[in-house]
């Protein structure tokens, strides 16, 4: 199994700062904006972004969204996908929603998340922020508005995000060859 480092702790930090600046460019005062981290792994990234914005004296409501029950691959897998907690402690009606996930791969999770989100209300605008955008592997016409890093990958490869918040020693993003 080959492992290649895509982003280390330092570069991750720089990337997150850049993503925050891009968000600020587009949202200025964030008055009508909310952040939704996608379960299970997007929530850690959402929390990091949330903290970084806080350091810049910007406070945005943060929620977690679980799309498990809206997935389209139910009954096509061996076991039913396991759900995580959804916590949306604010109304998203007429809000600008930023969905946050760690890796954008086929786009199917994001499709499910859009469905799941709409059951909470009708947002004014929805944007997608991802840390790693795996180009060339999309199944659906879905693109991210804010991208930490573009990576050319094959279907057989895997992107592994290790964050300190998830219990890892250091923040590291890996590209793994499965063979």
């Amino acid at each position, binding site marked *: 199994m080959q492992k290649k480092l895509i982003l280390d702790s330092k570069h991750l930090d720089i990337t997150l700062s850049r993503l925050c600046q891009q968000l600020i460019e587009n949202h200025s005062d964030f008055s009508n904006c909310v952040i939704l981290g996608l379960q299970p792994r997007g929530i850690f990234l959402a929390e990091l972004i949330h903290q970084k914005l806080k350091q810049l004296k910007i406070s945005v409501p943060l929620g977690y969204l*679980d799309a*498990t*029950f*809206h*997935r389209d691959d*139910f*009954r*096509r*897998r*061996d*076991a*039913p*996908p*396991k*759900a*995580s*907690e*959804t916590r949306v402690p604010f109304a998203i009606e007429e809000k600008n929603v930023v969905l946050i996930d760690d890796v954008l791969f086929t786009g199917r999770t994001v499709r499910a998340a859009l*469905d*799941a989100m709409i*059951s*909470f*209300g009708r947002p004014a605008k929805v944007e997608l922020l991802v840390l790693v955008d795996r180009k060339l592997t999309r199944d659906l016409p879905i693109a991210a508005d804010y991208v930490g890093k573009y990576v050319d990958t094959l279907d057989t490869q895997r992107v592994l995000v290790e964050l300190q918040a998830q219990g890892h020693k250091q923040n590291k993003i890996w590209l793994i060859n499965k063979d």
Partner: protein
Amino acid sequence: MSKLSQRHLLGIKDITRQDIELIFETASNFKDVINRPIKKVPSLRDVTIANIFFENSTRTRLSFELAEKRLSADVVNFSASSSSVKKGETLLDTVNNILAMKVDMVVMRHASAGAPHFLSKHIKANIVNAGDGTHEHPTQALLDAFSIHEKLGSVEGKKVAIIGDILHSRVALSNIFALKKLGAEVMVCGPPTLLPKFISSLGVQVELEVQKALEWCDVANVLRIQLERQQLKYFPSLREYTLYYGINKKMLDDLKKKIVLMHPGPINRGVELTSDAADSHHSIILDQVENGVAVRMAVLYLLAGAQG
């Protein structure tokens, strides 16, 4: 682990503690779903479920139907009283005819113990037992245990007294299995004629005095006297049963600790519970009903997903 060890839910006896914990975890996610403004998720969109009830039911059937509809399943209902069963069709024929119309899951209630087990050997669809005679009622036991888990934080180590007509109750048997698997201490309490002879071999304590049972327990699960199943006289009169085994609010208030009062319904007010006890702050009877939908959603979701 996100998969049940069984293809069917026939009884609590057949499933593991891990299965029960997985169902609880999934159920709490569904409980969140059914408290949203939009209570529906598309998980079971391409699944057809037949509710086949050979015995009367309002609560269980409604609860299952709501669970199925909130998972976006297609639902067909069948009740024996208005069907060809009256014309002499066998159980297997009836169900095979329904399955020939491409049904994926069957939720079944039947007056004979073991009917769903028999069917599970002959048909492909997933079967959920919604009560078979005086044998098991697994989803009721799951929702009872889930309600205890939710109210008291865990089931492990808790003392649960099941009070009333144990002999005719499928809820009692399923509850005993579920609670024992989750590590609770279980006591059954009722008139000697309504306690099965070898019940203590299941590892439960037996108590004849309801006051002692209430003093012992953290949770009292009170059962209905199932007069419709009693061909014999098991006690002299309902009034006498109420005198010795009925629970009123004063009995609950006079206890040194606060206990949780449960009832699987339908309540016979004034028989096993007085109205003031049933409506008191001890009671979580309506929480049980709410949890019933979430637990049944979890069971259907996990069984349907395991077909893959």
